[in-house]
Each structure stands twice: as structure tokens, then as C-alpha cells.
């Protein structure tokens, strides 16, 4: 088994889902429309804050083809959904708190009737004063988003401390201070939120949902609607993208409600792109004040950081996202004195929620920009200041956790510094064409893996030997496109000595698969992979033992699994798996095993507000180089070079690592240069894909990915999570590169042509 640790999946082999996806054969939740299925849609507020003074559904009910119209009065249970804090109404009864809040649910026989029914719902509001700025929301006179709530608009607050930051800052040779901001961001998954639900006569609720967390969804739905979670079955086929936007209920509670009221009927809800912008979760906009102090020789001494997150009107995972942001606010650096304070404010903006990079994107932009300011103040090159302070294994992180052994961030920086894009950068800049200024930036990044201490990061894997002698693995963690299902198949095939074609994969189904945590937090392949390999080991041992009976062999350890059977190298004899399987009852053909991610053993005595998810033990490190071109006439910026070096444990499939890194970097580039919701009074003005611009393939360079030799002994085949680490670099690296190119010192994203042009004006008087 140990020799296998050095083997990746067979190189060059396409992932098992590639052909189906390329041919359009893969079935997503959105593709399932049972005959006679009804359609459900939501009437949404359209104002940022108001009291519902009249809600009349009579006209809507009278529309031919409309089957029912449901309001708050039809909701059993608490009417409150939410993952940790339950504060989001399934349907609003008295008050709406953002433009996308749902006030009525219409179920109809077809699309036209649904549209007519939604248009016929009459709702009148009394507008209430609203608040759109998270810092303003925390002032004493701000309008309250949840008037009866103790604590007002302060949804969460926390402190992480090490040493004495204030005194240390006072004694530093240099201190730089800056205020940095990052914007809200939409996930823009290809497949918008959607799903299906049906209540069977037995009372069992069956759902098919594009979701990242089928097991947890049951509890969220049950809590909101007063149901028994055991009576809810959820299937999660492949997702057409998630990125955090499907971590937490989107259509689930609404669909379940419709199903309860219309027993026996299949009901489908599929949000349009526009509805997804309006009602879907967003990356939290954040403002960060940093003071960073060092000795004259560049040694970092202290950091004080205050982060303020815009949660929108409902908690979702805001507190947890803030926690992770705070935990990363000191960067991958050695800093003895640290004070990081975080607050999350309720506002009447769109709802903040999970998004790849989960608070870290915000923190990383701020700390990397502060490092650039400090380097300039010290007259140092940005990369040398980073190298000097790079956190080494065994040293304590900003929040006081010892860094695990393994390839570190300095190695990632050094690999980037040795790369031709870096060594050749001066020549490249000199060769800039007319009207073009080039610049290169290099930053360090890190991303924690898993849920963190206090919230067991678990997965259970089930593996079945079929009667035909092939294998079926039950994936419990949805594949939202990141390729975990394919990785599981490859891992199982390798562990069982079988070709990948002999391993089928059942996608998550709470009725068939054992439970596991969500598809999130760069944890999926690590945690489920570990559980799966354990199940594979048990299975292999069982098969060797059973084969030993058939082969009359006294030393089963001598036997090996080979394609289609078990062989005895000593005798050359072979027993087919189909024969072995025929002798086993079903219970005996199944192996189930589980894994829980290890946590920090001696957590530092800080961050006490965070019972769930602080601190994290394993981090993936990286460095990101961006080369940009700024046009002198237009201020347009093009990202033309991008290199990511990472230490993410062993590489199981290079293509898998590259796809995750490149995809994440593209999303980071969108945040850096393009994406803007253009909020005005809580309303998204750029609420479709003609106005909310994500980068196209022409706007992105080929992204070079360089995973370094590394090993994580606790990981399945030595791997660590790496689905998020690639997203952090482009924001700060593009900003640093633009300073190099045109002297622009960007403190916020996205960086627009207007801003670049203004910087150019200053250069050329």
C-alpha cells in the first residue's frame, strides 16, 4: 500500500466524467423534469426594506394554470432557515429585508401560467429606512435590520490575539497603515440553483437538488418547516458549478413547502440567471484597516487588523466566513504580536454567503497590499520582504498555531522567483509595445483546509462489490465540477488494482450513501478520500482472505488484487471477482468506513467567540505571479501572465490540480479587474451577464501551474486540499503589478480603467 503513495492516477487519462460532460450526456438536477411536473416560482420584494401592508393572492390564484399560491401563513415550523443561525424566512410574513426576499410562492402547470401568476400577486409595502453600509449599520442610530434582536445589527464579533500588538506597534521602527476594500461577488455557476421535490403518500419527501450539502440540507429544511429530517431524502447529481453559492438552502425550503401543500406531485423550481443575481448569496464585501509594523531590517513585529464584513440581512455563514478571514489576516508570515478584530454587520444589501476563498480572499488582499506598502517604506523589494518573513514549519502562525511540517510558503515564493516569468521580467517590461506599460507582481497566499476545530470535518464512504465482480462507490460529497467524483474513482481503482471502468460511482443520495460533510472548504478529496481508502483497504483485505479459501492459500497477504480478480503470484492461480462475489451475501459485499480530519491539539487561548471552526490545522501555501499590461490611452488592464506555485501535498492528478488552480485564478482575476454588482440602495444594477462582466477566455492568459514536491502524511495518498488557494493571488498580485507598471497603489477591487487612467495622468504631466 505504501508504494502507492507515490503513484498518482494514471497520467494523461481523462477524468471519468469528461466524456459525458463534453458530449452533453451528463444529467444535472436541472435536466430532470418528471412527466406532469409542476413549476414553482417566487414573488420577490423588489425593495430593500419594508413592512408588508397588503398581500393579496386571489388574482394570482385565479390565473388559469396556477395550482396554488402560498404565503407565510402556509408555512409550518419556524419559517426560519439558516445553516448555523436560523434567521432567514422561507417566506416573509411581515417584513422584507432585501430586494430578493421572497413574499409568495406560486405553483403552476406551465411557464406561462407561472409568469402570469407571479405578476398577479398583489403586494404593497410600507418602506422602512434601510442601511447599506456595514460600518454605518454598526452606528447607534442606524436602522435595525432585525428590530427585536439583541445586539442590533452586529451579527458577530470576534478577536484573535497573540502577544501585545499595540505596545509592539508603538515600538516598531516603521509602521504602515492602510484601509482596503474588496467587493461582493456573484458565483456565476453555469447551472443556476434548481431542484425538484415530491411528497410521497408514505409521507416521505424526496428531492433532487443542485446542492453542495445534501445531508445537512435535510436538517435545514426540517427545522424551517417543522418536519422530521429522517423523512427527507435528497439526491445531489453532478452540479454545474457551486463555488459556495449552493452551500446552504437556495430552492430547498421553498420546494419542500410546495411539495407539502401539493402531496403526490413533482414540483420543480429553477432560478433564472437574473433571479440568481437577485436572490442568491454573494461573497461578502469587506473593509479592512491594517497597521503593520516592522524593524528597520524588515523583520515583522506586529499587525493590528480590523475587518468589517457586510452580511446582508441574514447570517448564512457570515460569522464562520469572518472567522476564517481573521485567521488568515496575518498572511503566511511570522508575526509575534497580533490583534485581529472582526465584525459582521446586518445590512439591507444582498445576502452574504459562502464563496470559494471564504473570507480569505478579503484578508489576503488586505495583508498583501499592506506588505507592499511596508516594502516600499523600507525601500525593499516586495518579494524579499515576504521571503524574509515567510512562516516556516513549526513556527507559530499569526493566531498562534504551529505550522505543520511540509513544503512551505518560502519554497513557493522561491519557485516563482526561479521561473522564467520572473527572471525574464525586466526584458519583458522593456519590450512593451507602444502605448503599453507592463508590470509584474508576486504575492504569497495560503488557505486552510477543512472546517476547523469544534466542527468535526467528517466523511463516511461506502464501497460495494457488485455481483458481477465490479465495484460501486457511493460518493457522499457532491461533485460541483471540481472533479472529486473522478478522483474517488481513480483512487478506488488504484487501491483495488482495477481499471477505472470497473468502478462505478453513485452520486450523493441520502437514502443510499452514508453521511458526509459538505462539498466545501478545500476538504472534499482529503476527508472523503481518506474514508474511501480505508474502505478500499478493508475490501481488499476481505477479498484476499476470501480468495485464499478458494485458492487454498494459507498466507492471504501473498495474494494480490489484479484486474477482475485475485491472483496468487506464487502459483499463478487466479480467482475472478465475479466468482467471489457470487458467494457473498450483499451485506458482506459492502465495506463502510469513515474519517474525521485531525484538529489542532493545543489550540491557542484566543478567538473564544468561535466555538465552531477555530483554529485550522492544515494549510495549503502558494505564490502567485501576475504580469499585466496597462494601456496608456484607455487605462484598460490586461492580465497577460499568471503563474501559480503551490504546496498542496502530493499531486494525485496533475490535470486535476491544474484545473482547480486555473479556475480559481480566473475567478480571482474576475474579482481583480471585472466583476462589479454596482449596488445602489441595495439593488444590484449589474444583475445579468450583459452587465456583470466575468472574464472570457480572451481576457485570461494561459495560467501556469507549478505544484511543488510535497507530502501531507495524514492525507489520502499524501494530498491536501487545493480548491481555493488559487483564487487569492490575482487580486493583490495584479495590484502590485499595476504599481510596477503605472504607479497605481490600489486599495480596493475591482481596478477599473478610470482609476488606472488617473494614475497614468499623474505619471505623464
Amino acid at each position, binding site marked *: 500500500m505504501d508504494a502507492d503513495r507515490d503513484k498518482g492516477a494514471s497520467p494523461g487519462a481523462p477524468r471519468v466524467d469528461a466524456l459525458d460532460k463534453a458530449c452533453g450526456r451528463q444529467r444535472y438536477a436541472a435536466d430532470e423534469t418528471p412527466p406532469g411536473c409542476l413549476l414553482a416560482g417566487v414573488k420577490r420584494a423588489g425593495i430593500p426594506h419594508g413592512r408588508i401592508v397588503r398581500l393579496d393572492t386571489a388574482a394570482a390564484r385565479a390565473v388559469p394554470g396556477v395550482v396554488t399560491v402560498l404565503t407565510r401563513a402556509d408555512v409550518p415550523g419556524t419559517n426560519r432557515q439558516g445553516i448555523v443561525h436560523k434567521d432567514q424566512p422561507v417566506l416573509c410574513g411581515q417584513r422584507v429585508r432585501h430586494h430578493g426576499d421572497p413574499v409568495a410562492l406560486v405553483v403552476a402547470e406551465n411557464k406561462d401560467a407561472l409568469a402570469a401568476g407571479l405578476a398577479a400577486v398583489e403586494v404593497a409595502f410600507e418602506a422602512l429606512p434601510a442601511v447599506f453600509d456595514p460600518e454605518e449599520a454598526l452606528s447607534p442610530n442606524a436602522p435595525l435590520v432585525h428590530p427585536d434582536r439583541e445586539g442590533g445589527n452586529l451579527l458577530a464579533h470576534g478577536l484573535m490575539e497573540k502577544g501585545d500588538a499595540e505596545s509592539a506597534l508603538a515600538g516598531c521602527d516603521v509602521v504602515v497603515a492602510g484601509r482596503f476594500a474588496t467587493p461582493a461577488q456573484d458565483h456565476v455557476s453555469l447551472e443556476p440553483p434548481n431542484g425538484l421535490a415530491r411528497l410521497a403518500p408514505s409521507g416521505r419527501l424526496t428531492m433532487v437538488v443542485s446542492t453542495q450539502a445534501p445531508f445537512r440540507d435535510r436538517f435545514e429544511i426540517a427545522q424551517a418547516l417543522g418536519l422530521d429530517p429522517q423523512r427527507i431524502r435528497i439526491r445531489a447529481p453532478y452540479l454545474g458549478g457551486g463555488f459556495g453559492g449552493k452551500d446552504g438552502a437556495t430552492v430547498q425550503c421553498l420546494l419542500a413547502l410546495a411539495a407539502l401543500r401539493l402531496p403526490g406531485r413533482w414540483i420543480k423550481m429553477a432560478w433564472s440567471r437574473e433571479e440568481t443575481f437577485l436572490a442568491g448569496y454573494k461573497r461578502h464585501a469587506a473593509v479592512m484597516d491594517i497597521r503593520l509594523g516592522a524593524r528597520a531590517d524588515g523583520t515583522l513585529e506586529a499587525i493590528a487588523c480590523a475587518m468589517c464584513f457586510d452580511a446582508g440581512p441574514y447570517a448564512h455563514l457570515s460569522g464562520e466566513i469572518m472567522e476564517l478571514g481573521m485567521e488568515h489576516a496575518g498572511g503566511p508570515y511570522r508575526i509575534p504580536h497580533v490583534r485581529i478584530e472582526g465584525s459582521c454587520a446586518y445590512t439591507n444589501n444582498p445576502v452574504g454567503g459562502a464563496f470559494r476563498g471564504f473570507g480569505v480572499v478579503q484578508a489576503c488582499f488586505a495583508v498583501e497590499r499592506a506588505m507592499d506598502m511596508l516594502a516600499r517604506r523600507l525601500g525593499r523589494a516586495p518579494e524579499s520582504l515576504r521571503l524574509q518573513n515567510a512562516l516556516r514549519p513549526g513556527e507559530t502562525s499569526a493566531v498562534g498555531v504551529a505550522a505543520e511540517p511540509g513544503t512551505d510558503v518560502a519554497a513557493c515564493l522561491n519557485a516563482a522567483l526561479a521561473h522564467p516569468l520572473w527572471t525574464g521580467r525586466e526584458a519583458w517590461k522593456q519590450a512593451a509595445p*507602444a*502605448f503599453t506599460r507592463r508590470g509584474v507582481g508576486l504575492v504569497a497566499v495560503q488557505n486552510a483546509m477543512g472546517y476547523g476545530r469544534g466542527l468535526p470535518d467528517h466523511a463516511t464512504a461506502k464501497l460495494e462489490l457488485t455481483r458481477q465482480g465490479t465495484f460501486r462507490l457511493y460518493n457522499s460529497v457532491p461533485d460541483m465540477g471540481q472533479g472529486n467524483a473522478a478522483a474517488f474513482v481513480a483512487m478506488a481503482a488504484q487501491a483495488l488494482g482495477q481499471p477505472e471502468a470497473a468502478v462505478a460511482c453513485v452520486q450523493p443520495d441520502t437514502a443510499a450513501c452514508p453521511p458526509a460533510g459538505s462539498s466545501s472548504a478545500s476538504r472534499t478529496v482529503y476527508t472523503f478520500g481518506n474514508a474511501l481508502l480505508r474502505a478500499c483497504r478493508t475490501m481488499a483485505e476481505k477479498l484476499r482472505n476470501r480468495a485464499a479459501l478458494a485458492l487454498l492459500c494459507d498466507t492471504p497477504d501473498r495474494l494480490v488484487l489484479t484486474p477482475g480478480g485475485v491472483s496468487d503470484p506464487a502459483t499463478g492461480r487466479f480467482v475472478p471477482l465475479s466468482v467471489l462475489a457470487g458467494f457473498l451475501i450483499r451485506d458482506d459485499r459492502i465495506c463502510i468506513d469513515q474519517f474525521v480530519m485531525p484538529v489542532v491539539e493545543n489550540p491557542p487561548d484566543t478567538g473564544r467567540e468561535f466555538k465552531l471552526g477555530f483554529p485550522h490545522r492544515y494549510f495549503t501555501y502558494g505564490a502567485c505571479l501576475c504580469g499585466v499590461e496597462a494601456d496608456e*490611452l*484607455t487605462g*484598460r488592464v*490586461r492580465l497577460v501572465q499568471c503563474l501559480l506555485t503551490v504546496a498542496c501535498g502530493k499531486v494525485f492528478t496533475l490535470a486535476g490540480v491544474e484545473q482547480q488552480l486555473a479556475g480559481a485564478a480566473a475567478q480571482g482575476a474576475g474579482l481583480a479587474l*471585472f466583476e462589479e454588482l*454596482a449596488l445602489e440602495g441595495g439593488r444590484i*444594477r*449589474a444583475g445579468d451577464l*450583459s*452587465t456583470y*462582466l466575468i*472574464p*472570457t*477566455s*480572451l*481576457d485570461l492568459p494561459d495560467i501556469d501551474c507549478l505544484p511543488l514536491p510535497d507530502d501531507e502524511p495524514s492525507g489520502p495518498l499524501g494530498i491536501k486540499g487545493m480548491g481555493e488557494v488559487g483564487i487569492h493571488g490575482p487580486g493583490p498580485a495584479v495590484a502590485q503589478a499595476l504599481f510596477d507598471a503605472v504607479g497605481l497603489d490600489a486599495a480596493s477591487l475591482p481596478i477599473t*480603467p*478610470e482609476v488606472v*487612467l488617473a494614475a497614468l495622468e499623474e505619471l505623464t504631466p
Partner: protein
Amino acid sequence: MLDDGLSPMAGGTDLLVPGRKAAGRGVALLEGLPGLDGVAMTAQGLRLGALASLAALERHPVIRERLPVLAQAIACLGSPLIRNMGTMGGNLVTASPAGDTLPALLVLEAVVELASRDGRRHLPVAEFLLGPGRTALGPGEIVAAVRIALPPPGASQHFEKVGRRDALAIAVASLAALIVRDEAGRVVEARLAVGSLAPTARRCPSAEAALPGRRLDREALLEAGRRIRDEISPKGDLRATAAYRREMAGRLPLRLLTLA
């Protein structure tokens, strides 16, 4: 069919966008009508059929060779998929201030060939475009073709679109230029047209008048830019502020410094 109020449809890339004009109305497919497709050489120059796809026009060797300003404009319109379906007739009749082919057609002094039951008439593009979404197209009339006289072989042609990204981006500003110079490099004739800076794509006669007799140096081009600024009336929107657009108007001519 047009009498019944149906909208003529070419590629449908404007017409079928939800929430636009066609919603609920029927369409009359122009595809297959004789004489609307293809590119023909005539004694006067080129005749581009209104139904020829933008992709086909972009690829056409004579257009690439002799009308590079148009080829460049088409190359940055939408995306390959949009160019495969979309047509120049559709781009003209949509008459968006940001229509990418329009500034190029203006500097090429293209003429629109209109056809109806009553016959054909010809209108210069500048007279065809009346306002945002408004054209001189009469009831029952369709665009049959666009006629372009080939410019002198030595003329320099240039098109630049400023968008917020490199594909699928509506122009924030655009500039088309056609410049004829003598052997000494002095401008003999200058034609300049801008997009997204006024209610329609438009020529900039005052800026054009600043160039003849001069070399295309920084000073001359800045002067042209200043004059373009005085000829336009840009608006602000989600893509850019009016101030930025005004800035672009003044700066884009400087790119002509890179003309060979």
C-alpha cells in the same frame, strides 16, 4: 408578412434576446430570400448582402485586404457564436449607438440598399441612422445590402473598440479612421467616426478638417481629439462614466501614431 406587423429576422441575435422588441410578436425569416446573401464585386465596389453572416464577412479576402477597418470592427463584435449568426443588416437596423460595424461603415461611406415591394432605394449610412434604435427604414422595407466603394489602396484604415473586456463587450467608445496621405506623409483626406459617444455612431467633420495638410503627429492627433470631444454628447452608464467616454474621445486618435 411584413404588412402583418411581423419583424424581419436575420440572425436573431438582437431580435430574440428576451425582453427586446420581438417578445410576443412573430418574426419573418429573411433567410433564403434571393439577393440578400453573399459578397459580390461590382463596378462600383463591393456589395455585401444584408444576410451574410458577420463571420463570413470577417473572413472574406477582399474585405480583409481592402476594408480592414470593417474586418477589424467585425472581429471585435460579440463572440464567434454571435458572429456566426449575426448579420450586418441586423447591426444596421438595430442602430445601437454602440453598433460595432457602424463607425467603420461611416468612414467607408457605405450606402444602404433598401428593398420593398415598390422597388429599391439607396441611402448613405449616415442618413440611414436617425437615432438610438431608429433608422430611415420605411414600412414594408428591408435592408438588402450594403454597398461600399473600395478606398484607394494606400489609404490607412484603423478601428479600435474600447470595451470592458475582450469579447462579448458592448463598446464604451470606438473610433474608426480612414486616412489618405501623400508621399511626404501629409494627410490628403481624413475620415473619422466614433461609436458609443453620441445617440448614433457618427462622423466627426470638424476633427476631420483639422488633419489635411498635416502629418499624423502627436499634436495634430491631439487637436483632432479635442475637436471630437466638442462634437460628441456621451452619456454615463454601468460600463463607463460620461467623463471617461469624453476622455476616450480625446485620446483614441493618438493610436494613429502607430499607423505605418
